[in-house]
């Protein structure tokens, strides 16, 4: 006979790698996702209906199928329903589910281990707990739990249910908890005995939960994408533990793949906003500091009216819109697209300047604007658009702040110093749509707003854009 199960797992593993590879190129990305999904399906079928011995329907199939069906239905609904802008939350939630699954597996396997070791014939050498199984079980438990709890907290933070919460010397406390976890897990092994060791076991779980909370609580909501990516790789490792436990290759491959890819991805993300992973983890995101209307260097802001801006733009020959986090908050992408169309109709050349880390997740602006059917060719990446500002009449900055903050170039002391920015100050006129003088994600003041060329149109982005649309119509 042929080991169909093994082959199924092989196919699964390969399609994971292949899929992830394809996901790395814009053109094949979507297909890649399907490839990976296909591989997953094959692996699941292999697990359900085959053993290395050949065809054999797994026991308790009814429960399993029921759970899978339920999961499929609910999962699909959740994923389909979710708002584009709430995607990161979703990802975080699903990631947590994976962690939970890993933790549950470990718990069951642990009880299993107890019983087998407790069985009479094993009693005499009860202390001999197979470390080859113990390590993966505990590792899966701990990592899975942390990633579960962490993801839930991250999810809560992203949809605003949970706020940031810092406490003195958190690093030390976290470190202590981590060590405690390992210590207890070790005791649990040393003192192994079919009856009371379970106590240590539960302590381990408890500590893991606490660590999960402490780990994510202090981190600024804006850094969640990074954290999720990290927890993502955690879950990968947790799955890999299962792979070791069952000597199951597809779990191992998939888990490790995500573990390593996720870690790199986390690092790359941090680089893109030019923060160190360390800073992110110890929660050093500058929370929104209040702003003033006169700059350190004593300039003052010029407030403008929608009418003037409308005129300005209607008679401009080239307008560049710089979308930022505020556009997402205000859900102003549709009205923004409307404005763009009207200007185009007036013969104005309108483009969007996409900064790699505008918004709160990489590609946030692409996703957002694509949702309102903005033509993809109008979304220009930073390095390609920067040269064009010099020839631009009006730059409309919609809810963006840090990504247009000259301090990144001029002020070495600034937290965002070194981050590449959009050179909007090259343009003839700059109009900024935001609600107040408040700082952005980096929590720092923005000299640009005090620039003579720059006019502020205060108010919610959506409202302001709507005004502009009406004014342009009116003219």
């Amino acid at each position, binding site marked *: 006979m042929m080991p169909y199960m093994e082959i199924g797992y092989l196919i*699964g593993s390969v399609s*994971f*790698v292949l899929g992830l590879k394809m*996901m*790395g190129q814009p053109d094949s*990305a*979507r297909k890649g*996702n399907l490839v990976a*999904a296909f591989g*997953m399906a094959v*692996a*699941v079928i292999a*697990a359900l209906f085959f053993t290395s011995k050949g065809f054999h329907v797994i026991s*308790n199939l009814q*429960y399993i199928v029921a*759970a899978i069906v339920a*999961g499929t239905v609910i*999962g*699909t609904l959740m*994923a389909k329903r979710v708002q584009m802008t709430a995607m990161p939350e979703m*990802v975080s*939630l699903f990631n947590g*589910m*994976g962690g*939970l*699954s890993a933790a*549950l597996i470990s*718990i*069951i*396997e642990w*009880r*299993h281990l107890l019983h087998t070791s407790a069985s009479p014939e094993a009693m005499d050498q009860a202390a001999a707990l197979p470390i*080859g199984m113990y390590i993966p079980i505990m590792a899966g438990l701990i990592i899975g739990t942390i990633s579960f709890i962490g993801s839930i907290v991250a999810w809560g933070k992203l949809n605003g249910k949970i706020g940031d919460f810092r406490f003195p010397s958190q690093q030390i406390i976290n470190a202590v908890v981590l060590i405690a976890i390992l210590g207890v897990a070790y005791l649990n092994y040393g003192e192994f005995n079919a009856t009371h060791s379970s106590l240590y076991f539960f302590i381990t779980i408890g500590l893991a939960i606490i660590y999960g909370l402490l780990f994510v609580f202090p981190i600024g909501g804006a850094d969640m*994408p990074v954290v999720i*990516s990290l927890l993502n790789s955690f*879950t990968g490792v*947790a*799955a890999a533990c299962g792979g*070791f436990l069952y*000597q199951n290759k*597809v*779990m191992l491959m*998939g*888990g490790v*793949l995500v*573990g*390593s*890819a*996720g870690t*790199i*991805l986390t690092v*790359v*993300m941090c680089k893109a906003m030019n923060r160190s992973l360390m800073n992110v983890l110890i929660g050093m995101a500058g929370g929104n500091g209040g702003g003033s209307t006169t700059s350190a260097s004593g300039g003052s802001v010029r407030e403008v009216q929608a009418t003037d801006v409308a005129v300005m733009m209607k008679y401009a020959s080239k307008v560049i819109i710089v979308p930022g986090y505020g556009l997402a908050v205000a859900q102003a992408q549709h009205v923004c697209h409307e404005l763009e169309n009207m200007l185009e109709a007036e013969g104005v050349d309108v483009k969007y300047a996409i900064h790699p880390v505008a918004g709160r*997740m990489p*590609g*946030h602006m692409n*996703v957002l604007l694509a*949702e309102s059917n903005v033509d*993809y060719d109008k979304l220009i990446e930073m390095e*390609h658009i920067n040269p064009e500002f010099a020839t631009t009449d009006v730059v409309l900055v919609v809810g963006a702040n840090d990504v247009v903050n000259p301090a990144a170039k001029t002020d070495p002391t600034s937290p965002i110093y070194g981050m590449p920015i959009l050179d909007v100050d090259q343009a003839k006129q700059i109009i900024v749509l935001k609600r107040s003088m408040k700082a952005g994600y980096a929590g720092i003041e923005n000299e640009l707003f005090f620039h003579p060329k720059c006019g502020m149109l205060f108010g919610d982005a959506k409202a302001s854009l709507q005004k502009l649309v009406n004014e342009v119509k009116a003219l």
Partner: protein
Amino acid sequence: MEAFFQQNTLNLIYLVVLMIFVGIELISHVPSVLHTPLMSGANAIHGVVLIGAIIVMGNASPDDTLSLVFGTLAVFVGTLNVIGGFVVTDRMLEMFKKKPKGEKVS
């Protein structure tokens, strides 16, 4: 330590090491707009833990209720991870479909 180095464990170690390389290589050359979809895709892939949940269920004796309950739950949440993950990723990538070539993004 010895036990750790059993033959088949060693095989797994080879796989792990290689897979780490693969993961690193695959990600290091990716345009930043794809970071989120990639994260989401990877998230779906580690849903493979579902296989483990299925195996657990397979081993659980029908009278061991607690295992069955936990196991079923594990399968359920595992499936959520897989399905949800892939669907969300697909929706994200849908956004990129209008792209003609690949320059602007990279």
